[in-house]
């Protein structure tokens, strides 16, 4: 069943009376419980697409459906921004609890859920720290915890691991994969990194710029396998994707 269904999506930004067409005729389908990865040049409208799905931008044309609902109706969407969006004036505990507070979850319940997610993400000993006292990888864990504590159905991630070094990045990819296997989250993730796309994306959507549109969708069988990195099929898929991106840009 198609969980995420986007048909002929178009987004324009108005700048001083001039219309600037950012997304044009975007079509994207993602089944429930799968990981989709969007890859494309910067400025092609990837963040804009996520903003539409996260109901931060209602000014679009075309059909956008999440589990049969419009973005504005769908309550189970979580968005993780590129620079995490953690509030510097709240400590880790309160940053994670923020979504629960906004949803008016009872005090006891939110305390329990908060502690559980802290343990799961292995950041329990960081709970009194402020974001400024965290490393990039730790911030990323907190940001993921803040989203997952709300038990979303759809997780949107905007270049989540781009500012991490190679080792941290692979560790976070493993953690994400692990979380995904435990739940039946549907994940749509943006990346610039070809290996990341192949490692995580069961569906890989390639976008082109000006105006942004999806020019190719790859079905990727080897995604979601921890041991795939370095295997021949993995490298082959990377090369296919790489040559395709080269051709297009």
């Amino acid at each position: 069943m198609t969980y995420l269904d986007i048909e002929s999506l178009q987004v324009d930004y108005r700048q001083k009376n001039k219309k600037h067409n950012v997304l044009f005729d975007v079509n994207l389908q993602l089944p429930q419980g799968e990981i989709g990865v969007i890859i494309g040049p910067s400025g092609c409208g990837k963040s804009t697409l996520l903003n539409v799905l996260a109901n931060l931008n209602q000014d679009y044309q075309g059909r956008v459906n999440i589990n049969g609902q419009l973005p504005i109706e769908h309550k189970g969407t979580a968005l993780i921004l590129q620079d995490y969006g953690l509030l510097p004036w709240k400590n880790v505990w309160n940053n994670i609890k923020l979504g629960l507070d906004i949803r008016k979850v009872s005090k006891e319940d939110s305390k329990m859920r908060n502690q559980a997610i802290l343990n799961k993400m292995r950041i329990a000993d960081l709970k009194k720290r402020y974001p400024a006292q965290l490393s990039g990888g730790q911030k990323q864990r907190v940001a993921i915890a803040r989203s997952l504590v709300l038990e979303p159905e759809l997780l949107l991630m905007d270049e989540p691991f781009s500012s991490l070094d190679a080792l941290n990045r692979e560790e976070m990819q493993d953690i994400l994969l692990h979380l995904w296997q435990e739940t039946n989250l549907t994940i749509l993730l943006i990346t610039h990194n070809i290996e990341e796309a192949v490692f995580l994306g069961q569906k890989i959507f390639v976008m082109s710029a000006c105006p942004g549109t999806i020019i190719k969708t790859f079905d990727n069988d080897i995604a979601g396998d921890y041991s795939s990195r370095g295997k021949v099929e993995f490298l082959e898929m990377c090369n296919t994707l790489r040559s395709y991106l080269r051709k297009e840009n």
Partner: protein
Amino acid sequence: MQISKIGWKTVQFFLAIVFILLSWWIFALLLETPAFPPPLEAFTSFFKSMQGDMLLHLRISFYRVAASLLMAAVLGIPAGLFLGKNPHIDQYISPVIYLTYPIPKVVFLPVLLILLGIGDLSKVVLIALIVFYQILVTTRDAARNLQTEYIVSVKSLGANSLELYRHVYLPGCLPAILTSLRLGLGTALAVLFLTETYATSKGIGYFIMYSWSSMAYDKMFAGIIAMGLMGFLLYIFLDGCERYLCSWLNP
């Protein structure tokens, strides 16, 4: 580590006090005038006056400053946050603020005296008006310059406008707000002195000028010390607020 940091702060503080008293004493010796007594004499007179009617004047002045700062904050902070959050409204208000900001509001003292009488209200309103502008402009600019990621990420958690103010705008602008309050405090005390030297018989400003005109220089200097200490205590209070409310700045 923490203890030695506090210990060093205390030493610095102590040294500063010694330095100020020493310079004061040297100046007093050089000037040799009853209008500028040395520290010991001045403080003796201060404690003596505190037992007399100066305390009453001080209390009234304190009330005037505190009330006007409170009034300015209660009006200025929400208005500043609102304008910073809503640039499409600010674009109409901003020129009005821009044109009226540089006008020295003290010149409205006579007008306020006529409209509101010579009681406390005209003084409080004048001080509040001046400090209000400082708070409004600083708060608005801070709110305008908040990183959009904070706002977007909290919005994506489902926050409404009120929750955005509570979780993002107010805490995010608080350091700027407290800075504007501290700056405003200096202005407020200066304007307070001015308003109390005219058409009133109460307040520490009146006490100082009355002592001056009756050549009671020891009392005059006691009043100056009282005014200085009041400013100092209010400053410490705001500093404490910042340390308590914005502990995330220096974790």
